[in-house]
């Protein structure tokens, strides 16, 4: 079986990609895609640790990842609704347009 640290490395790299996307892109849809990638990286960690645990009896890590997927689905639904609302108000999905609270 593939050692645990290789899964963790892949997860760290995926998280970095998602973070770079969130920090550098100004299209709201792409920012949400970056958030999804970061959530998926966390899920990969859950599954890897679950599979490599010495105690095989329980499915805890698996269930935690499932709940994380559920929360991510709720998050993306609300996030995309916000983008639609922003688009209705500004005719653009550019996040720089939403700056009326900027000091």
């Amino acid at each position, binding site marked *: 079986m593939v050692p*645990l640290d*290789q899964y963790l490395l892949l997860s*760290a790299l995926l998280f970095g990609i998602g973070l770079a996307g969130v920090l550098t892109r100004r299209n709201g*849809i792409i920012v*949400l895609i970056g958030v999804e990638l970061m959530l998926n990286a966390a899920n990969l960690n859950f599954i890897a640790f679950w599979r490599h*645990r010495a105690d095989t009896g329980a499915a805890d890590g*698996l269930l935690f990842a499932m709940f994380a997927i559920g929360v991510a689905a709720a998050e993306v639904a609300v996030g995309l*609704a916000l983008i639609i609302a922003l688009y209705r108000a500004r005719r653009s999905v550019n996040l720089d347009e939403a700056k009326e609270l900027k000091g």
Partner: protein
Amino acid sequence: MGLTFPLLATVTWLAALGAVALRRPVYAALSLVVALLGLAAIFLTLEAQFLGMVQILVYVGAVVVLVVFVIQFTRNDEVPLTGLAFRPVSLGVGIAVLVTGGLIACIAGTPEWAVKPPEGPPPGMRQIGEGLMGVYVPALEAMGVLLTVALIGAVLIAMRGRSTSLH
């Protein structure tokens, strides 16, 4: 087993890179599909078959379809392609590289993992069902409430914009 994981990891990582780096949102969404399928395959190598299927059904089947619908509802071509949100861009990428480097340093710096892969097969559907219907019932109920609230909230947010624009 030998080459499966490196191959899947490479494909997944490159597709994830494309998902955040490609200019056109439709291509980014399609690249995200490849990354999510790669992750589902990696879940299969970890013998988490059920979660791999959930990953495909929920992410590729629902989330990406939602993203593609929103891409079609909005005109994305007027988003300026130059001058990204986090100025300068190198600052945003630098922060991401720093965080990733820190994570990798922590992983590489751990001399020995206390956990070892067990010999037998991992818990199957029976344990998942018992967990969902036993210890994790409160979490499952909370998830149901959360999804309902999110659904109503998403509809309300998307509808309110229309009603104000009609006035």
